[in-house]
């Protein structure tokens, strides 16, 4: 028996893509495997680690907890869409580079998208707020010390 496919349109980083996917296709898989946007990573497949976080209409969502069909009509932003059109790193990306905010880089896209949304809502966080901002994402390498610094540095760059 063959699995029925649904025609969906996904808007990702300002580009509209036509896809034919099964109803059960996860958004994370559609982004990675159907669209080749492999910057979004899958660390746990149950919404805990945050590595797959993308922005949907500017709000952070777990791409592993959403079906591709549920993302129809949303403007999605993945890590590939954070830098400027001319390739300039965003403030958050720049801050990560300056502060040694990443090691293996696997969880990094989820942090970058999360912090991008966080700083939009609260551009000048206190130290406590900077820590809170990343408290839903797991990193196994950095011990978070430099990620917190990167949040604060990104706020400075955006000031």
């Amino acid at each position: 028996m063959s699995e029925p496919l649904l025609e969906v349109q996904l808007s990702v980083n300002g580009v509209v893509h036509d896809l034919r996917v099964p109803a059960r296709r996860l958004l994370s898989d559609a982004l990675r495997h159907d669209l080749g946007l492999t910057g979004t990573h899958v660390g746990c497949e149950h919404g805990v680690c945050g590595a797959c976080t993308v922005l949907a209409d500017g709000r952070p969502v777990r791409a592993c907890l959403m079906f591709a069909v549920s993302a129809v009509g949303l403007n999605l932003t993945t890590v590939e869409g954070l830098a400027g059109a001319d390739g300039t790193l965003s403030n958050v990306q720049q801050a990560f580079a300056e502060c040694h905010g990443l090691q293996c880089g696997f969880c990094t896209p989820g942090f970058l998208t999360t912090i991008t949304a966080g700083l939009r809502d609260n551009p000048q966080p206190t130290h406590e707020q900077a820590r809170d901002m990343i408290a839903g994402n797991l990193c196994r390498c950095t011990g978070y010390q430099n990620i917190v610094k990167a949040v604060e540095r990104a706020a400075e760059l955006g000031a």
Partner: protein
Amino acid sequence: MTTRLMGTGVQRVEDQRFLRGRGRYADDIAVDPATLHAAVLRSPHAHARIVDIDVADVLDVEGVHAVWTYDDLTGPMADPLPLLIPHPALTHGRTQYALAKDEVNYVGEAVAFVVAEDRYVAEDAVGRIRVTYDVLPPVVGVEAARAADRLVHEDVPGNVGARMEQSTGDVEAALAAAPRRLTLDLDVERSASMPLEGRGTVARWDPDSDRLQVWTSTQTSTGVRAVVAVKLGLDLRQVDVITPDVGGGFGVKINHPWPEELLVPLAARTLRRTVKFIEDRREHFVSSAHERGQIHHIEVGFDDEGRLLALDVRFWHDHGAYTPYGLIVPIITSTQLLGPYKPDVYRVVFESLYTNTVMVTPYRGAGRPQGCFAMERTMDAIAAELGRDRTEVRAVNFIQPDEFPFDQGLIFQDGRELEYDSGDYPALLEKIKTLVGWDDFPAFRAEMAAQGRRVGIGLACYVEGTGVGPYEGAHVHIETSGKVKVATGLTTQGQGHATVFAQLVADELGCRFDDVEVVTGDTRRMPYAVGTFASRAAVMSGSAIHLAARKTKEKVLRIAAEALEASPDDLQVVDGVVSVKGSPGAAIDLGTVAVLSNPLRYAFDEASKAATQFTVGDPGKPPVPEDEEPGLEGTDFYSPERSTFASGMHAVIVETDPLTAEITILKYAVVHDCGRLINPMIVEGQIHGGVAQGVAGALYERMVYDESGQLLNASFMDFLMPYVTEVPDGIDIDHLETPSPLNPLGIKGAGEAGVIPSAAVFASAIEDAEGLSSPGLTITAMPISPSELFHLRLAHAEETS
């Protein structure tokens, strides 16, 4: 002269691709509809005989390309997986099959393998395989293994895979003669490396060239290459293994081959399609590897100063269902337990035991956290017994700076003498005391007590054998563009190797840092290598790269000297330009030297046009002189006599809630000596990450097995990996640099240090905090949760009332 980069916190060059979503991890390879995907049926039982496997329901599932069980494997693939590190003491080593044959020995053991159009369909198919099991009683945990009233492997008596003993004298006599004695029983539970990226393998067979390409998320690409070749009956030269970006390893990815690392290449060759296996998180919990589970019994004899006269240690190591990685973990515990101290007599005996749980391979620190816990708990116990300050008891036992090299009289994990190369432990102790405010703590404690708050301080010391051999190699190649291409076979999983290795090359060669590109873990570029583990990358590959760059520079100077009509001794290379010292006009750049190094027959661009034999070289000599080779490159290897020994001390101030027993970290301090620093920013990053994993191991992470061998917390929801909310808000770090005499750069490894003393330092601090209201309460098992501390208080109150 260019600024020297060694010792400078240069920003990482690898970050650009990671920040832009352009990293290439295993699952990012071969993203196209033609790729097939594998899924694995895993045992639901910890111990069972396989009576029958029925795959009939799978064969007609649309999109399924292969369904394999053990019966489908032939030749070397049908043999057990290799025992990678055999050891004479490992008398009963056992390894699993790529797919279970007749019996399963842990929940998660691979039973059947399916390849399908996508992972969803492959998992559907896995769900339709019917296996009939004859369930056997399992052995779970060290106590059950020691009781041995049931066996994991019928032919392994007592569940004892290995028994090993080392000693430096007659410990019983020394114990009997010691004026004071103590006994301790200490437990450490299982945890796991748990990288954010699990295991993953992609393979492609090229029928036109009869070659196999394998991308795998490993810590050793040469090891995987060798085993794939052996198991698939291929010549080594037919197999390329490429380690792409790796999303963390921490030890677990050093084991090889995983069953899937063989089955995926086999499927790619059989099906003539690219095949991919990407482990999911639950699979990682139940089918990769764990570590840390050990129990220890210690008898110690000492004098009134706290000096160690006799140390007698027995411990039992839970190595799980199989022993593919040999005895590395318990050997490290048994030797590294000594830390910076020098007991008069030491004896250690361990048994490595089979249990029906996931197998054990090294996890960051690899047996050292347990050893450090055992030794430092002993030090604290001695201090308590004598009523002395904990730092004094440690200081009186330190190996002194003028005693190096210091031979501990044991054999280390690499088969070499446990001989420390250099260090200054008294200086480290002074630094940690200052950094944490050890001498001011009583005043702070009194101040807190006045507010009804309960605080404690602890410290722990360790020595870490790093940079184990046998060797690593490097290749440095200067192109005619002046770009410098560097390859080392050792892999990388986030440590910033591309940056630190480029620093070393730029320093030694005199080229521009930006012109250096480093490739790691690609057997096409450097087929001789060992791997990334035991904090060995900087020491081993760093030294090899340094030597290869030096060799390349010799050739640069030889060729440039001829071109500039100068003596090589009068030349310097700065920012990629070779010039005669004192004559700024006489200069050529490295790219031009590369042109001169390679006489050509054909011209295909400006550089090659300049390099034809009609314009290059002395017409009186052959175009490539005897004892010369065309091209500007150098290869070299570094192989040390023995390991380097990094060292360090951690201290922590904690607060424990008098009511809820919640444990809060108020201050965390680290002093660290990894010899000369290449990039302090990266070293501190390694310490940060290690401390977080250490906090996790001390306070949160454990593998919760039930008595039937089911892992009850096999998800990130239930295995408590720390978020930012669980780690110290700020870690104070200070460095000491005692250069290693064993390598040209004077460096020692830094990768694991952050995690080693954590269980010990937290136990010490929590015990100290509790001491005021519960005198004599001792912490003997880690990790410790608030509820465990709460119950410990109750039990202690009952005992003492």
